């Protein structure tokens, strides 16, 4: 197995580079958005300037300039509105499109992951990465191309404007910027670790609710309502304390901002008014004082916005990292170059195969399996829970790779085959039978997308599914609900067998997939296998002795090893585990005792 542990955490630059590849066709919108934002900011900063001219003319003697400036101002405002409107639209397209591509890329990547890879991430974590994390990144992206462009621009434009009015007094604002910046970022730095703690406690609290909701029968049956209440109140109280602490610190934000703003305004008022009076209204004007204050407000609130952006973006950073981890992940199980496309026959060989799920733990799920199955024979596998029956057969279609030893199909190492070709030749009916939402026919065509109605019906007859399908109102067009909840367990199993048969496989593996089928049908299916697909190698995992007793070879698995091997008669005669299981199922031993 390749050594590919969670490598050193990716740097932010790498993350951005990886995610950036998913922008693609939305580059245009992503560039237009900040351009229009810049336009809007520009116009908004010019507006007060022109306005000052109009105000000055109020004291004039003619209506003409007022109307003229008014028309200009209206035009500017309309342009600004248009820019704002367009930037909003483009931002929406860019961010929603970016999110769409991210989901698409993630989904495609996940389809290529092997089970070992999926186990590494865990299924629920992958689902979260494709949903919540993408949404977080989408919001952050929109924020960055809009607000994160708007805010600094606003600050710069406002500074330029205020300097053009009076440079000396603008220094007051400039001096306030670092003061406020330090205070606000200091508050955030203090609060962030508390929030991280809160999220964990919050999750634990919700976990406890979840347990109560789904385990309410247990809670009530054991009369543990009070116990659960105490547990919850404690968790809830912890969340309250931390959250209150965090919010109390955050409560300094607005007052700090206002304090800086008001200080600046007082200073500007004092200096400005003195200047006007001392120079007799020639060095500085009242209108200038007003504009300065307006720009000052804009500069300082921009800092506030910046800190908000900072928090939002750093929250999304975690999500971005989690997404790119998946995107850069190289699947451990891929088709080799120059892969074999043809599986010659259904023979299977295990050459001293050992296997463990996690690379580090030496917890062997399979140890030294040496097994040779000729093409076209039938093999039964029986054994207790956790004896690794399923693990064994998963190595055949290369759902996992053997840790040690070689698995060969048709005489060739499975690692040399093209994955698609190999899996087409090996049909597995899994223990957890899954049907997908869609009609029966659609579900069947998973086995073979080009199968004709006749072929489907033939396979369903083989699997004894045709009889009940014919009784359904819409027959083969009957809609199957997600997870196949509207057919019985036995019916589901028969449908899954039929689906596997449609692949016309060289090897057919039934993993405990007739457990819910009644014994008569079970026997009929096995008879059909023997008669209709004699050249296919058949491997049957079962709990019931009757399901495997007719097989050419029967394996008894225990603790990841083949404990016994032989046919029904020889194993019975041997008097080992097989005999024990046989007796427990036929009740031979117990009838006398009871």
């Amino acid at each position: 197995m390749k050594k590919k542990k969670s490598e050193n955490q990716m740097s932010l630059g790498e993350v951005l580079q990886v995610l950036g590849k998913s922008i693609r066709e939305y580059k245009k919108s992503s560039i237009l958005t900040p351009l229009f934002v810049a336009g809007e900011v520009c116009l908004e900063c010019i507006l007060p300037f022109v306005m000052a001219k109009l105000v000055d003319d109020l004291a004039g003697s003619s209506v003409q300039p007022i109307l003229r400036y008014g028309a200009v101002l209206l035009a500017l405002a309309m342009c600004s509105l248009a820019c704002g409107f367009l930037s909003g639209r483009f931002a929406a397209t860019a961010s929603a499109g970016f999110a769409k591509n991210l989901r698409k890329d993630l989904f495609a990547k996940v389809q290529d992951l092997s089970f070992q890879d999926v186990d590494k991430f865990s299924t629920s974590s992958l689902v979260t990465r494709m949903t919540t994390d993408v949404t977080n990144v989408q919001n952050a992206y929109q924020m960055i191309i809009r607000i994160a462009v708007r805010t600094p621009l606003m600050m710069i434009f406002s500074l330029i404007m205020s300097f053009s009015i009076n440079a000396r007094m603008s220094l007051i604002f400039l001096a306030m910027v670092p003061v406020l910046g330090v205070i606000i970022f200091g508050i955030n730095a203090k609060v962030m670790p508390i929030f991280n703690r809160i999220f964990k406690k919050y999750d634990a609290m919700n976990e406890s609710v979840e347990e109560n909701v789904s385990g309410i029968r247990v809670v009530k049956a054991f009369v543990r309502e009070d116990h659960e209440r105490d547990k919850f109140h404690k968790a809830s109280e912890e969340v309250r304390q931390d959250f209150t602490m965090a919010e109390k610190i955050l409560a300094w934000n607005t007052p700090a901002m206002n304090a800086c703003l008001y200080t600046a305004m007082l200073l500007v008022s004092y200096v400005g008014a003195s200047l006007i009076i001392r120079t007799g209204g020639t060095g500085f004007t009242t209108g200038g004082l007003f504009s300065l204050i307006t720009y000052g407000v804009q500069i300082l609130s921009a800092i506030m916005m910046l800190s908000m952006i900072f928090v939002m973006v750093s929250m999304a950073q975690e999500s971005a990292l989690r997404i790119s981890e998946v995107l850069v992940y190289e699947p451990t199980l891929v088709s080799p170059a120059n892969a074999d496309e043809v599986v010659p026959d259904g023979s299977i060989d295990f050459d001293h195969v050992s296997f463990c799920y996690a690379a580090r733990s030496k917890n062997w799920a399979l140890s030294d399996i040496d097994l040779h199955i000729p093409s076209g024979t039938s093999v039964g596998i029986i054994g207790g829970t956790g004896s690794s029956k399923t693990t064994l057969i998963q190595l055949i279609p290369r759902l996992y790779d053997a840790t040690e030893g070689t698995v060969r199909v048709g005489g060739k190492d499975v690692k040399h085959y093209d994955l698609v070709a190999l899996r087409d030749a090996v049909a597995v009916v899994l223990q957890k039978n899954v049907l997908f939402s869609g009609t029966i026919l659609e579900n069947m065509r998973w086995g073979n997308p080009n199968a004709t109605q006749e072929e489907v019906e033939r396979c369903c007859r083989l699997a004894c599914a045709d009889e009940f399908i014919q009784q359904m109102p819409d027959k083969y067009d009957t809609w199957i609900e997600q997870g196949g909840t509207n057919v019985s367990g036995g019916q589901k199993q028969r449908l899954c067998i039929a689906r596997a048969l449609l692949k016309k496989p060289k090897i057919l593996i039934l993993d405990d997939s007739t457990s819910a089928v009644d014994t008569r049908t079970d026997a009929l299916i096995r008879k059909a296998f023997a008669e209709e697909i004699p050249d296919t190698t058949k491997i049957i995992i079962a709990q019931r002795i009757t399901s495997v007793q007719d097989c050419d070879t029967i394996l008894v698995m225990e603790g990841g090893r083949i404990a016994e091997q032989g046919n029904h008669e020889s194993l019975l005669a041997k008097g080992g585990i097989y005999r024990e299981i046989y007796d427990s199922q036929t009740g031979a031993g117990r009838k006398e005792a009871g």
Partner: protein
Amino acid sequence: MAQEKTRGPRGQRGPASFKSMRQAAAPGTGKRLLAYLFRYYRARLMVVVICIILSALSGTVATVFLQRLIDEVITPGVTSGFAFVAGKFAGILLSMAIIYVVGVLASLIYSRIMATVTQGTLCHMRDDMFDRMETLPIRYFDTHAHGDIMSTYTNDTDAIRQMIGQSMPMFVQCSVTILAIIFMMLYYSIWLTLVVGVMIWLMLALTGKIGGESSTYMTRQQKSLASVEGYIEEQMNGARVVKVFNHETRSKEDFDRLNDALFSDSERANAAGNVLMPILNNLGNITYVLLAILGGLLVFSHAVNISLVGADTITAGIIVSFLSMSRQLTQTIAQISNQVSLIAMGLAGAGRVFALMNEAPEADEGYVMLVNAEKDADGNITETAEKTGLWAWKHYHRATDTTTYQELQGDIEMEHVNFGYQPDRQILHDVTLYAKPGQKIAFVGATGAGKTTITNLINRFYDIQEGKIRYDGINIGKIKKPDLRRSLGIVLQDVNLFTGTVLENIRYGRLDATDEECIAAAKLANADDFIRRLPDGYDTMLTGNGARLSQGQRQLLSIARAAVADPPVMILDEATSSIDTRTEALVQQGMDNLMRGRTVFVIAHRLSTVRNSNAIMVLDHGRIIERGTHEQLLEQKGTYYQLYTGAFELE
């Protein structure tokens, strides 16, 4: 084999917030929420309101002072010199400083108090909600999607936090500001105020329209998000099937279709949300321009200005101050319109939280209690505090004011019981059965035959509609529910474990059990072996409902949990369904030990498990169609015989 349940997927977030966008809160929700706030924090909230008003006013009044600075200091100063106005100047600056300091302090004080109030209220709400939830009948959990219940704790409380902590103070502050500005505007000029009024009306109308569009698409976005999530989960859960059938390419194509739909809804929802602020801001700018033009025209035409203080000609000074007020006003309105959707979401969330709190708790009119008892030499039963292994029913007779004790035997009778989960769909028909103390009674039958339903009735998870159920001759309706349930041990097919160590999970059966007792119970259930092989043995932490354990191992733990509870009557509902036959044979001995001397109800689809029962009931569509011992039923050659010989499917 358990009955069909409607369970939402774990931690489902999308659909819940989608609902919060749609459903308006029930009337009275706001009132009730306020009552909640004021119940615990009346005094603090008074301080908060005062501080908010102070902080709002300080922001507004500042404009007035700037006006005074110009009229009373700068203008005369320019003509008469600095010394002439120095006193006035200092006075105005000082009052401004004082007002600012008050404003800053007020906002600091209310923000900090609100942190306590918000989190405290939320904590009270959560606790009340959880307490109520624990009292709700099983029916509630069977009829509500678990994802929906969860989201009242997550999404809805979050929305309420937003509303109480941010939107409400801001709403009050903005309202005060708006009122103050409108008052001042009227004070200056009624004509110009009318212009502002028209523009505000336009802004509000646009907010409503765009906001409506935004929430329509938001709803659609949440819907398509939910279907994308559903598809991802379906594909992930069926990943093995996808792989063995080489279905990856087609899966991707289907995904792309759903993903594209999500994109277009998301794009439109965001677009509507994005354009609102620029539109409002620029409408503010336009208002500003219109005021300037109109004001200018009024000045030049020497029109008569009407204001609250009388009629006069309009001046440039009035227009200038009006302009800054209108800017402040439109900004405040933009702020409020931002809060409206948050408040609606918060109210909708509060509505659902209160709906949960309004659910009627499980009714319990029982009065017979279960107590530890001692028996003296004469056979008289007395109550005792210690655990004696002997239990008694304690009856209090009000008529005679006497208390009698009756030894717990474990004798259960059902007579002519009829039951349906919904009144119009009867599940059980005329079920009559007797379980004598120490007997093992088995139920056999297809899914939906009513086996689990019967056990649901014995411990009163559901109440019967007709007939009688008696426990030691006492109608179970007269027994207090907690006492009834403590006398019944139950092992269910769906095992639920709790976050905690293995030992804690076993101890769940009896909180005062010693470690030794728990380990003995684990041995009895044949779980000791695998527990010791876990990384930390009995101290191994279990999370996510014991996700690291196999279904069979979880069932063994669940049996150990019931064993430690040591109840006189046991219900085993498919307790060993996921344990293979060989391990089951090993567990069987422990199970037999566990069942000895107790009345036991067993449900199993594996007939080998029920063979040695005293009586086997074969259920079909809610009726007992055959009953008898294994041998008797085989002789009858009826349904049981066919099941036993495998001619019928059970699942």
